């Protein structure tokens, strides 16, 4: 696994943790332990996403940019084996 793949895997893991915690909070909105867990999971996700995006490009449309060339479509599509 190259650096790009391992940084992407870190984002996938952190985002899944964040997502699954949100699903739990949807039905347990006043669970203080889960709220605290979510806060930490969000920080971990933001850090993983920043590390990936800083080196390899945007993960979502809202973080896409470019000074001379639009970078949204420059990476492999997620279903490609290179992704």
């Amino acid at each position: 696994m190259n650096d790009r793949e391992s940084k992407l895997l870190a984002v996938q893991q952190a985002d899944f943790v964040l997502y699954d915690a949100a699903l739990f909070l949807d039905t347990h909105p006043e669970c203080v332990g889960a709220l605290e867990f979510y806060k930490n999971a969000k920080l971990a996700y933001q850090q993983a996403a920043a590390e990936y995006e800083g080196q390899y490009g945007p993960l979502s449309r809202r973080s896409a940019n470019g000074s001379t060339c639009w970078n949204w479509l420059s990476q492999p599509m997620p279903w490609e084996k290179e992704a």
Partner: protein
Amino acid sequence: MWDYDRKLQYPVKIKNPDARAAKIIITQYGGPDGELGASMRYLSQRFAMPNRMAAGLLTDIGTEELAHFEIIAAMVYQLTRGLTVDQIKAQGFDAYFVDHTTGIYTVAASGDPWTATYFQSKGDAITDLHENMAAEQKARTTYDNILRLVDDPDIIEPIKFLREREIVHYQRFGEALRTVQDQLDSRNFYFKNISFDN
């Protein structure tokens, strides 16, 4: 993967319920040229696109079509709030009502349920992009027809927005088609299927 934003792409605020209009507009939810078919078409076809610009464009437009699917549902929802059974009968909504009450279901104006036969994924980028350009025009005609049948500005404004998006998508698909043609033999675009043949 996808994420949900808690906003519509274009606001829907319909003051007066109108089941007759709902019965017509729902065709863009589950009808032959509707938003669900559009989204499934692009999100399925994108895997056969031979370049990342075309694959990315189909992803982005297929995603936007889901937002349009939601706008249509919001319109049908608001158009069918607070109706009496007498109004439902008088406005011709009884056939839908008996099967779905005022729940949102993917049907055409005719009552036919949505079917995957409304779109194709042919595994040939030239073929698929031509289908998409035709599909955008068919949806544009449907919105033109809806605009002939309604007169409430609360309905007209979101429908005009959706109609305009069909024109933008048609333009973008034409540009994507050009990028695919640029990868082919300019003397014969049909020399091979770029999505299958090496």
